[in-house]
């Protein structure tokens, strides 16, 4: 299959789309949360402004920071951005979609986290170590759960290729599947943990001792911090897109379908983002954060749901 200019253009559009929408999604969730608490809340554009502000600021580096500490923001940002570009958003079958499947996305995110955890320990502060150890504990449980979800969905669709899965589920032949339902709940739980949302972590806390993700990046500043924050925005968008693409692929355009269906696909995608973002804000407002040692139980439940979904498929193909 030859690569045409159109393919590259549409893929470029996808990369640009996730790049521009990611801060907006976070801004939207913050706004909704503020409104739910009877506050006015910052502007939807505040995350962009924050990023710009951080980019303009000087980087303050610890004396004993190694190359790893300085390289990590770029590595994590690149890995997450590429991963986000791999998930079909407004259209399936894009250029990159055929190069990598769901397992590659999991691996890219794992790479990003691996570097962040190392960087957290690099400077040798107590909080960096604390954050890294907590993050790795969560990751060690979230990743197997994520892989089981991948297997479950892949078994249903007969492929681990996201575009294939999305097209398959959007088609009429799927119907209501118990295993897909289980996988969806598991994916939501994993997404909450992976994105440091309540009830696993609190993205807006100022209490050093309770932080997970924030403790790990406490030593970062300036453009480094901007990249890490941007990475976090992108990761949230990625998971929301993944949920939309895997379980609600309706309205998504097929590659080469023309400009009109791309526009429709984008509009539907934005609506999906808003809907999931609203539900996330609602959920976060109604729940307190759980004890650190409850997180393994929480993610264990996600793992079991994924496993159950996969096993059901061996019992009967129609479940």
């Amino acid at each position, binding site marked *: 299959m030859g690569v045409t200019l159109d393919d590259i253009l549409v893929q470029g559009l996808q990369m640009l789309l996730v790049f521009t929408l990611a801060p907006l999604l976070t801004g939207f969730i913050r706004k909704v949360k503020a409104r739910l608490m*009877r506050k006015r809340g910052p502007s939807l554009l505040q995350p962009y402004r924050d990023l710009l502000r951080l980019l303009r600021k000087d980087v303050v580096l610890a004396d004993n920071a190694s190359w790893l500490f300085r390289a990590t923001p770029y590595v994590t940002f690149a890995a997450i951005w590429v991963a986000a570009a791999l998930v079909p958003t407004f259209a399936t079958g894009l250029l990159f979609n055929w190069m990598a499947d769901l397992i590659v996305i999991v691996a890219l995110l794992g790479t990003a986290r691996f570097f962040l955890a190392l960087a957290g320990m690099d400077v040798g502060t107590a909080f960096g*170590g*604390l954050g890294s150890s907590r993050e790795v504990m969560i990751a060690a449980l979230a990743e197997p759960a994520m892989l089981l979800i991948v297997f479950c969905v892949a078994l249903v669709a007969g492929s681990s290729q996201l575009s294939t899965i999305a097209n398959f589920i959007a088609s009429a032949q799927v119907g209501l599947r118990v295993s897909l339902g289980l996988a969806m709940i598991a994916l939501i739980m994993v997404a909450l943990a992976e994105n440091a949302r309540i009830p696993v972590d609190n993205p807006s806390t100022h209490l050093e001792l309770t932080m997970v993700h924030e403790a790990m990046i*406490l030593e970062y500043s300036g453009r480094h911090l901007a990249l890490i924050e941007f990475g976090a925005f992108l990761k949230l968008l990625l998971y929301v897109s993944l949920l939309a693409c895997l379980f609600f692929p309706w309205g998504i355009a097929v590659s080469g379908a023309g400009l009109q269906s791309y526009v429709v696909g984008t509009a539907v995608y934005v609506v999906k983002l808003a809907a999931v973002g609203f539900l996330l804000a609602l959920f976060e407002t*109604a729940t*307190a954060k759980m*004890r650190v040692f409850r997180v393994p139980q929480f993610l264990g439940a996600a793992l079991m749901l994924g496993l159950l979904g996969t096993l059901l498929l061996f019992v009967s193909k129609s479940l």
Partner: protein
Amino acid sequence: MASLDELKLQGRRVTEHGPWPRLVVDAAHWSRATLELVAGRWSLLSLWGEADTVHMAMLEPQLGEAVVISLPCPSGSFPSVGMLHPPALRLERTIHDLFGLVPEGSPDPRPWLDRDQWGVRFPLGPRLPPSAPRGYQMLPVEGEGLHQIAVGPVHAGIIEPGHFRFTANGETVVRLEERLGYVHKGIDGLLIGADLERGAQLAGRVSGDSTVAYAIAFARAAEAALGITVPPRALWLRALCAELERLANHLGDIGGVCNDVAFALMLSHCSVLRENVLRAAERAFGHRLMRDVVVPGGVARDLDDTGKGSIRQMAKTVRQRFPELIELYDETASLQDRTVTTGRLSAELAQQYAAGGYVGRASGRDFDARRDLAYPPYDQLRFKVPVLSEGDVNARVWIRIREVKQSIGLIEQMLSELPDGEWRVPLPATLAPAEGVALVEGFRGDVLAWLRLKDGVIARCHLRDPSWFQWPLLEAAIEGNIVADFPVCNKSFNCSYSGVDL
């Protein structure tokens, strides 16, 4: 329980001291009094120094009897109370830092306030030139697999400064050691030589959230020393301010505890109610926190009908909306999961440290200065003192919840029964020595004020925050909990930094 007569403390009674007796005793009786504290028959109210004397205030909580005993220390030392009764340790370290008096036999000779930054040692005592920097040794912790986490004094949020050294095994806290004193303002020194008006202002600035409680304690101590009677209307207005302060702080704390486990919804709603209280206070008394409203001799301003109306309106709003919030608190399982059984404080420790306020009352210590010392106008008001025995974060929240209801009841009673008449009397100009002491229930617990007047100005004034006896208990309550639960435990104690750093 042993009454004061049964204590058989022999000493010279100081006649100009009121309302409690003050006895000048010798070292033997000082040590005997210490043993009473150890046996738990009497509670330590405070321990403070002067250039050549140490004073100790003690309370027999069931009879409501209190006494101040004084031990002259011409040789510059006194028998340590903290040696046998640990609640006194930090107070003794403070006495040493400020006055240079040595607590003999104290197991902890480390400085408390002095960071070798003053350019002088013992600033209120012999004023010696500074010594070489001494450093500060945290208590040693030994064991396998332990690591330390140093937090503060500068924190990620905008809160007061304090240093917390955690020794943890993984996530489990093995020991917490606090180091405070970062907001030392030299209030003890500033008060010496100040007149009563300035003294009242300084007292009201010891701990901003308890400005009314401090002002009342100072005013009552001054009035006891001068032997003046304050008109009833002034007493009632003071109590009104005190209950408004309690209400505002408790509402803020209930929201704050929930916010520390990432349940920000509760904070938002509680903050709205707290704002209601503060605005009513501003309309009624001209200042949101009612700073400088209470003065020796009465109150600085009267309450008019508009003020009354706005407080009444506020009480109605809180009465209406608060039950929904309690329901939200009580029925959010994820929230209960974090507060129940977290940060348990044993009843024995609460008793030993004579912990005041919600900290003591959540651990079964049934004491409230408003009821047990029945200072006016509380002797004429109807209210209950809630007590729980669980001693966890949840219990400390519930004590606050119940006290909010009691405070609203008190506010409504006071508004409808407020006596008419004078609200301020002039202070007599006396040059003779006079001494007074008072214990007032602030929102955190009992605030003690003691002062000596001489030549018309303050010769020495001691203000003791309830947090003196609550901070050490936080160290005990967090033991065995996980590191990530410290913020919520800390918020449930909500001790004052400024109040103990003085």
